[in-house]
């Protein structure tokens, strides 16, 4: 099991991973992976399907006890999954407030306001649209004021228009929280990574196979980043022009 020692994270870092491995049977998915995430950094994690992105994220979330190596996170970790995973028997506001100390409902209301869901606070989750449910899930993660926010393809099930809105929302929220929160966004969408992240990682062969920093000011236009886009697609094994 990976050791979780907050003391070993350098002050400028939120997370530090050294030699993290995870195998399922004789299939090694993560192979002595090293990664540091800076405080307030927005990291996007790309990788082919089955490359181990979710596995890495689950290890960071503390959901996987069968990893080996060193893993330390400073501060709370919050997760928004691909499916919103709201408890259907709790109203939206109670989903957001779940697990908060007493008085959490007020903070939950604030979080719902931030994601523009005030009107749906007392709704049952099953009545929400896909985008609304995803925003509720985001509010539930944000209200915990996490040091590290893990997003596992939270936008992939949304239509293109809603996805753009969600990108803006995530950037706004991250700005708004004075960038104390580091974000690790798992995605298979290269454009999404380019538009949002400070740093883009490509997972391959169980390690960080490639990383690029993106200094461009936000909001970005994808047409300004075509060179990097082609390189990342190459890293992902997609020939230029086939996308």
């Amino acid at each position: 099991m990976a050791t979780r020692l907050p003391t070993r994270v350098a002050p400028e870092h939120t997370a530090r991973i050294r030699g993290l491995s995870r195998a399922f049977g004789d299939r090694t998915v993560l192979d002595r992976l090293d990664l540091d995430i800076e405080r307030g950094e927005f990291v996007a994690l790309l990788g082919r399907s089955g490359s181990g992105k979710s596995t890495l994220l689950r290890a960071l979330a503390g959901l996987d006890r069968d990893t080996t190596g060193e893993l330390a996170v400073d501060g709370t970790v919050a997760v928004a999954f691909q499916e919103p995973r709201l408890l259907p028997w709790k109203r939206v506001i109670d989903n957001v407030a779940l697990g908060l100390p007493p008085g959490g409902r007020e903070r939950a209301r604030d979080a719902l306001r931030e994601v523009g869901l005030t009107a749906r606070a007392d709704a049952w989750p099953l009545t929400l649209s896909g985008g609304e449910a995803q925003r509720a899930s985001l509010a539930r993660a944000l209200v915990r004021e996490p040091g590290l926010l893990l997003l596992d393809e939270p936008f992939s099930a949304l239509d293109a228009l809603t996805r753009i809105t969600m990108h803006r929302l995530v950037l706004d929220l991250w700005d708004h929280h004075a960038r104390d929160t580091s974000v690790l966004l798992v995605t298979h969408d290269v454009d999404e990574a380019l538009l949002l992240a400070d740093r883009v990682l490509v997972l391959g062969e169980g390690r960080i196979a490639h990383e690029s920093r993106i200094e461009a000011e936000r909001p970005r236009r994808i047409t300004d980043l075509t060179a990097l886009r082609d390189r990342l697609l190459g890293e992902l094994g997609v020939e230029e022009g086939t996308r």
Partner: protein
Amino acid sequence: MSSPALDLGAARQAARTRARVPRATGLQRLISPIVLLLLWQAASSSGLLPERLIAAPVKIAGTAVDLTADGTLPNAIGVSLQRVVEGFVIGAVAAVVLALAAGLSRVGENAIDPPMQMLRALPFYGLIPLFILWFGIGETPKVALVALGVAFPLYLNTYAGIRGVDGGLIEAGRTLRLGRTALIRHVILPGALPQTLVGLRQSLGVAWLALIVAEQVNADAGLGYMINDAREFMRTDVIVVGLVVYSALGLITDAVVRLIERRALAWRRAFQPA
């Protein structure tokens, strides 16, 4: 055994089918039962249907009034109801405790579930001779039979409900830093509730059936006794009154469970087309 998801599908299907057929008014739906009753009455009055086979509806109604007025019927209902309630409470508490123990811990699962799965195959009405040997012929064997009948469907459904809770939701609960108790309270138990209520409904049906069987075997009070006593004097009217009361009680308990379901599963109503 139906899963909550299947149940839901069935409910949706039913709602859709119902919607397609133009709804008969309450009055229209009463016509055929009334016609049948009239035919029955006519057959009885004309002597076509002798009273030793079955009494006439009017006579039955009169008997029901008499039995109520002289206290026989309320008394019998009271005695039978007490047996069902006692048996139900004992069986339900045992079932839920066992299901929680088996559903929430590995040790509990290994200790409790195998014997329960084996015992469920037992035709438990066949236990009556043993129960009489063990408990005599008083209240105990009747209450025990009801308790046993209640316990199995409720245990099996509650256990399956707990085990069937979406693992993704449990993970989400973990990432929200819910402790074990909070996880059970906010995620596992509510997640198991729909299936548990299916079990509750089944077990209440079984409870009345178990009572009827137990009261047929031997009883010196209660509805079953009233019916058996009536048989000796060929009072078919009393027998029918007893049967009607049994079914009315069954319908009432079913309505109560439906009410509980409506309130406890309000979040699920969102699924169903109005």
